[in-house]
Each structure stands twice: as C-alpha cells, then as structure tokens.
C-alpha cells in the first residue's frame, strides 16, 4: 500500500461497516475452510468418521509414497507445459498476423475472442463429441486416414484431447494480450530497422519478440495457473481423468480423493500442497507484473 489519499474521511464505525460484507464472506468461506484444510491434513479419521486422531505429517508421507500421486504431478506438469507452450505460440502467431492486416482486423478479433465465453466443461463436451471414438466426426476422419484414435483406451490420445480443448479455450485470452502488447511497440523502432534493411523475419526476432517479453512472461504464468486450476471442467467432462488416472491432474485428484474416495486426510494434504503451488505462482505473477520493463 504505497499510494495514499491526501484527503480522507474520519469515522469510527463506517469503514468497518463497509468492509463487513467482504470480511464475513472471506472469513467464513475462505480463511476458516483453509485453516480446516491445514488441520485435517495433520489428522486421520477412522473408517466410520467417528473419531479423528493427530498423525503429524503421516498424510504427507503417504502422499509422497503414493505412486499415483507422483504420477499426477508428472501429468499436471506435462499438461500445463503443453497447454502453455502451444497456447502461447498459436496465439502469438495469430496476434502478429492480426497486427499486420489493416483491413478486417476487428472482424478477426471478434471471431477469435468468443471461446473465452465458453465454460470449460462445455468446451470439454464439444471436443469430446468431435473425438468420441464411436460417433466423433474427427475421430472418424482420423481412423479413415489410418490413424488409430481412442482416448478411452490410450493415454496419449486422452492427453491430446484435453490439451486441445484447454488450448482452444485459452487462445482468445492470450491473443488479446499479445495484440495489446504488439500495438504498444513503438512504430519508429520497426521503421528504423526496416530502413537499415532488416526484413520482417529479422525484425520480429530482434525487436518485436524481445519487446514482448514482459507480456510473454506474464502470460506464461497465467497460462500455467489456468492449466492447473481452471481446467477441471474440461478434464471432468472429456475424460473423467481417465483412462485409468492418466489425465487426472492434481486438482482433479483432490476432488476425486475427497469426494469420491472419501479420503479426507489425504485430500486435505493434497489441498495444502496445492496451496503452496498457488502461493508460488501468485508471487511469480506479481513479480513479473511489477517489473513492466523491457530490458
């Protein structure tokens, strides 16, 4: 809180009253449950949920010893990396092209941003429908070309499916930010380089790309956060984390273990691990947003 108002009001009770609604909501639905998750991660309930006992870090030790949890980490890493890299490259390409055309730029923009409005779960259903082994039109096309496709049986196919759906949904967001970034690059730099004889390809790599680096870093963090936390609907609708648990990212596993397998302590320990990840990502995000400089 560095910035301050010079002129302020004085009141003993009014600011508290104004903050009360937000305060109650975050107290009851954020801090209390988060504290509960921390407590539960150190406890173990018996099979009937009648008594709980303190077990220290046993839940965490059990997690690290659980091959399916470690596998879920690997799956999440692979998934978020693919989503971030593919999503960023495709949107950057589209943004650079949209920045180049004079005529129709707004039309392209409108036609590219609407997937942002599609719910992740609906995106999952749309892609599932195209790739469903029995009825999907794209699955049919692939099989006709001799490419076997069955995301219900093959882990790689399932991963490809959820990555495609997740990237599709996120392109619009990345596109808007890249386009804004491109439009803020001073034209004089590019013109000077052009006069010096640099072609479009060279200008992109020596001027545009470095100037975009703050935007790119920022989007990288946002995309990883998106892949970690906002893709639950896509995964649940398209693959249920399957086949087996081959697309069960960490968030899906927290939900599954807590609500389907009813392992409260284990699920709480997973929540705590996720909390640590969110804190790290948030810190990263704010560091990159603070430093808005290009070189």
């Amino acid at each position, binding site marked *: 809180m560095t910035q301050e108002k010079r*002129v302020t009001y004085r*009141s003993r009770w009014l600011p508290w009253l104004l903050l009360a609604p937000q305060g109650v909501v975050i107290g009851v*639905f954020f801090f209390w*449950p988060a504290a*509960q998750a921390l407590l539960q991660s150190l406890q173990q309930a018996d099979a009937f949920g009648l008594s709980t006992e303190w077990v220290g870090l046993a839940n965490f030790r059990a997690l690290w010893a659980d091959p399916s949890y470690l596998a879920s980490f690997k799956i999440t890493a692979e998934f978020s990396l693919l989503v971030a890299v593919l999503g960023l490259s495709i949107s950057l390409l589209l943004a650079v092209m949209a920045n180049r055309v004079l005529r129709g730029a707004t039309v*392209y923009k409108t036609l590219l941003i609407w997937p942002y409005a599609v719910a992740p779960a609906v995106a999952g259903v749309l892609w599932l429908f195209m790739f469903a082994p029995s009825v999907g039109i794209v699955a049919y096309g692939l099989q006709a070309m001799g490419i076997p496709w069955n995301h219900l049986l093959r882990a790689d196919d399932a991963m490809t499916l959820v990555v495609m759906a997740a990237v599709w949904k996120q392109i619009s967001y990345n596109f808007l930010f890249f386009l804004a970034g491109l439009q803020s690059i001073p034209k004089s730099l590019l013109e000077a380089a052009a006069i010096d004889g640099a072609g479009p390809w060279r200008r992109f790599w020596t001027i545009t790309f470095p100037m975009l680096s703050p935007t790119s870093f920022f989007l990288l963090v946002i995309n990883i956060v998106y892949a970690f936390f906002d893709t639950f609907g896509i995964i649940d609708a398209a693959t249920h984390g399957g086949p087996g648990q081959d697309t069960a990212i960490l968030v899906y596993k927290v939900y599954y273990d807590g609500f389907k397998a009813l392992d409260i302590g284990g699920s*709480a320990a997973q929540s705590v691990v996720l*909390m640590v990840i969110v804190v790290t990502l948030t810190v990263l995000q704010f560091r990159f947003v603070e430093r808005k400089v290009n070189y």
Partner: protein
Amino acid sequence: MVERRPALTFLAHLVLVLGVVVVAFPLYIAFVASTQTADAIVQAPMSLLPGSHLLDNYRAALFGSATGGGSQAPVAQMMWVSLVCALIIAMAKIAISLLSAFAIVYFRFPGRSFFFWAIFVTLMLPVEVRIGPTYQVVADLHMLNTYAGLTIPLIASATATFLFRQFFLTVPDELVEAARIDGAGPLRFFKDHLLPLSRTPIAALFVIQFIYGWNQYLWPLLVTTNEDMYPVVIGIKRMIAGGDAAVEWNVVMATAVLAMIPPAVVVVLMQRWFVKGLVDTEK
C-alpha cells in the same frame, strides 16, 4: 505496417482465416449436430450440413422431453438457475468490492492494512485448495441446493477490490474537498460522485464476472444434488453420463449451444468493456 509486402499480407489473412476456421469448427459441429436426429449422428460420419430437426431438438432440450440415457431435466430451468447465479455473483461481487475499496482508500482506521492483506491473500485460496472444508461449511449452514449456497461463497473478490482501489486512487482529491465544502458526508460522496465516475470499471467487471459466474463448474457440482438447482453447465455433463451409446448427442449439443449463447452474447455485444475488464483485472 512498416512496408508493403502483398505476399506477407496475403499470408497473414490466410493464417487468420485458418485460425478462425479452427476456432469456430467445434461450434459449427455442435450446431450441425443440434439440427439432426440422434440416429443420423450415430451413423458415423454425421453429415456436415445442418439437418431439419432444429426446432425438435431445442424443444426437447428446453422442456426435458428427450428419451436418451442420462439426465433429462428441462434445460429451461437450468438456464434460469445459471442466469440467476451469474447475475447475483456479478452484481454482489461488484457491490461488496466497491464498498471495501471505498473503505480502504478513503478512510484511515486501525486494521486497514490487515483488511487489505486479508483480501489479497484470498487470491491464493481458490476453491480448489479448500474444497472439502468449504463444502462442509456450506453443508453446516444448510445452504446445499440453494441459490445462497451456489453464489455467496463465490462473491468475495480480491481482483475486483483492487481494480476499484486502483481506480479510486486516480480520482482527484479536489473532488472530495469540493463535496465536503458542499456539506456532503462520506456516503453522500460515494453515492453522488464516486459511483457515477466508476461506471466504466463497473461495466468492465460486470462482463468478466458474469462469464465467471455462468461458467462455474466445480462448485455447483459439489453443492447441488437436486436437478431443480443444476446450472446448465452441470446439466450438460449429467446428460452425457449415461455412457457412449445411450447419449442423445443432438439434444446434448442443442443444450451446449444454448449454454454458450448468453456469455457469448455478453462478450460480443460488450466487447469494448470485456477487453478493458480483462486487461484491467490483471494489473
């Protein structure tokens, strides 16, 4: 554009058209499927041209007269639930964030920085990391299967509070002084000066938060067990739960199209605010 290169411009249009086609393809397929009969879709490959059953399918979806496996709850009811939830979430988020930001910017009081940081920390506590205990709280408060349960836990907003705080900091101090000379107290100043000035950030946030509310999935999945309280996004998922063969894809796709229309309309019609909202909330 720095120089004229017709070949490159052509390439740019080509890439963009390709991008638009790929982005639009899933939607087109969904629309085409929603105009055909269930049998026509099952006989792969389905036709890529719209069929003649558009009205039948949408009627079946809206009023729940489908016959396939999985859930057959009427979509009209679900759309209503989604709309109510999205509106409550968007408006309540804006309201409580405006009040919080006003208190934090325009008052000096003990506990001010405590509140500021408490609100900031909620950024690091998305529902996914406290999923079990939050469910427990809502269950204990008897809010399962209610609009209150679907919305209130989601209306705290650090991003909205900070956006308004940022905006209030740019409002000139002279305005407060002038209002004070005119004899206006803090609430009067908030209502007569600050609110009208905040129309732009309010509109921008409304678009973002309406979409956020409409697209909620994990939270409604936990707190609704009653078909009458399913938002449409959950409803679609329940429809395909009947297994591959029993799914009436034509009705499912009609529902998907219906579920996409309201947020898409909001984005396209309020595009200017939408872009502004996206860019501003990330600052």
